[in-house]
């Protein structure tokens, strides 16, 4: 499957379009329902992070690229913001007293849990988060 890219303004209101694009590509690839559900959460979390943090001053765009490499479905989410590796955030501390605290890092935690592999790179002035899901269910 060839790689296709959707570029949109980094605004939460564009979430539906981003999810619809990723879902369509995942279905073309043949990702099973359960993995597709995890993929869509991971894509939402990555997209929302860009919307919230990549462009504190001026509006910017986000590109979502989906395709396959062999038996793996690959999604890359790219922005032109300041260099920032979202994977550097620690996992959230979720215990009963969370109700009394602020919670941070939950989105990134989901990205880690729901993909088979995730990595960050800085390339040509862009932050690129690469997420990989294997076609086969993890054993």
């Amino acid at each position: 499957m060839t790689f296709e890219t959707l570029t949109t303004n980094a605004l939460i209101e564009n979430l539906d379009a981003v999810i619809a694009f990723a879902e369509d590509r995942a279905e073309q690839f043949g990702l099973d329902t359960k993995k597709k559900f995890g993929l869509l959460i991971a894509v939402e979390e990555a997209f929302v992070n860009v919307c919230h943090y990549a462009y504190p001053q001026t509006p910017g765009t986000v590109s979502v690229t989906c395709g396959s490499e062999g038996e793996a479905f690959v999604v890359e989410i790219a922005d032109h913001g300041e260099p920032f590796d979202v994977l550097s955030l620690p996992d959230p501390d979720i215990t009963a007293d969370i109700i009394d605290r602020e919670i941070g890092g939950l989105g990134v935690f989901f990205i880690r849990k729901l993909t088979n592999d995730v990595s960050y790179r800085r390339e040509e002035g862009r932050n690129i988060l690469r997420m990989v899901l294997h076609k086969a269910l993890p054993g």
Partner: protein
Amino acid sequence: MDIQTQKEANATVLTLSGRMDAVTAPEFEGVIKQLIADNITSFVVDFQGLDYISSAGLRALLATAKLLKGKGGQLRFANITGTVKEVFDISGFGSIFQMHDSVAAALAEIS
């Protein structure tokens, strides 16, 4: 996401359907904040028709729980199943909230 509100004898039941994501979670918070402003503090949230939840949804539920705790209110969840339950379990939120197998069971625990 669609939110239906039903007043029962001892609590207000919010029935959710569709997707609870970064776009729709604020709608849920808006609805429940308005009810709390009207002095309603006992809630059961029915997840039967909800087929998607992300961290934005969990944050909205957490913010609601925090708000109600401050007011001595009650918040119980019913019918969390399937993929939505998996999200609760992965996050650890499954052990934080009071969850029930049915709306009736949740209502029975409201004091």
